[in-house]
């Protein structure tokens, strides 16, 4: 699995101190993907969808904590300024300390979430969502940015 492979490499990195301290890494592994959208038909991607959910890997000093927040777009922007609504439910985000997509703690991506790094110092964040194209949705390419913010403590 891509997330695990990536974190394995970064875990090796994190295991070695730098300047007497340990590094942190936040990585976008896979974008949230909705595939083909049909006008008027909402498309839902659940956070447990291995192929289409958004996936991030977070590496940090084991036992420490960090605050996770998302900056989410309300719409995607397309040709000529056309917009396509994007919504996120109260359990559309998930965190897995073991980096197992089947073993997540769900959380609201519109709220902050406190994570504790595992003994291996790694974890994965997953994101689902719903795209709601209008019946008269204009054809073309629509884009937006999803931002994951990770604030490490102390």
């Amino acid at each position, binding site marked *: 699995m891509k997330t695990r492979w990536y974190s394995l490499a970064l875990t090796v*990195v994190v295991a070695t101190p730098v300047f007497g*301290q340990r590094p942190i*890494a936040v990585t976008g592994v896979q*974008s949230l993907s909705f*595939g083909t959208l049909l006008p008027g038909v909402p498309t839902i991607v659940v956070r447990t969808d291995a192929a289409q959910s958004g996936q991030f890997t977070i590496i940090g000093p084991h036992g420490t904590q960090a*605050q996770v927040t998302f900056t989410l777009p309300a719409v995607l922007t397309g040709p000529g300024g056309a917009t396509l609504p994007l919504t996120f439910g109260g359990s559309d985000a998930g965190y897995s300390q073991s980096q197992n997509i089947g073993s997540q703690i769900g959380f609201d991506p519109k709220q902050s979430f*406190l994570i504790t790094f595992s003994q291996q110092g790694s974890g994965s964040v997953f994101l689902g969502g719903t795209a709601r194209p209008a019946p008269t949705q204009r054809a073309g390419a629509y884009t937006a940015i999803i931002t*994951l913010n990770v604030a*490490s*403590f102390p």
Partner: protein
Amino acid sequence: MKPTGLWVALLLGAVRLGAQGVVIAPHAVFIDARTRSSAVLLYNPNTEPVEVAVSFFFGYPATDSAGSIIVRTVEHPDSTSLSAAGWIQAFPRRLTVPPLDRQTIRLLASPPPSLPDGEYWARLVISAKGGQLPVTGAADTARVKVGLTLEVRTIIGVFYRKGAVHTGVTLSGLRTAVVGDSLAVRARLTQQGNAAYIGSAHAELVDSTGKTLSQMKAPIGVYYTMEPRYALLIGALAPGRYRLRLDLSTGRDDLAPELVLPSTPVRDSVEVRVP
């Protein structure tokens, strides 16, 4: 091999991966007033360049009404605040980190001349944005195509220390509540001295014989006043009287010992009655 050299060697040996983001070290920056400078190392372990932007803001860990730890952001800190965000600069502020390469960001502090002794804080934001990741499952004939770009923002603490710095913490209002199969523990923590209290909290539930039934340990950073909530898994506890002990100490595994300000351990305990 020196630790830094070994780390770089490991980084350079990292596999090529189709992802975006950078490795940042260290995870907290301490700047001494005698040198007024420090550095942050970025490494891009990916196969695509990563665009990085660097900025600062003033914020610190605090707790919300439920006791969860959050970063409290102060948009416009006044002159009496302990913000260093206005006078620490990063060079460069924008850069591109090539694939499998590393870059150094230098931090330079220019504090006001009359700055009193103490510790001042800022949060360093490192935003990394790569190219748009491939959208899987989008057929070429799709009438409506969607491409979402991922951006990651890593926020680390920056501590500027001038002159004699010392820290401590007071613990009050220790209380507990049985919630399902857990024991919720809350206490009011107030920072003392002129520097943040960076340490660890250790909670332990013992029975009348002193036997430990459940315990937890968590890192803690007290910048002003906070009331964190901890949860101890207790399962089906038999009715009776127990004691909850909470200890705070400045030991931290993730920080070099010379960076952690020592302080006398603080502890309190409270009786827990299970009906």
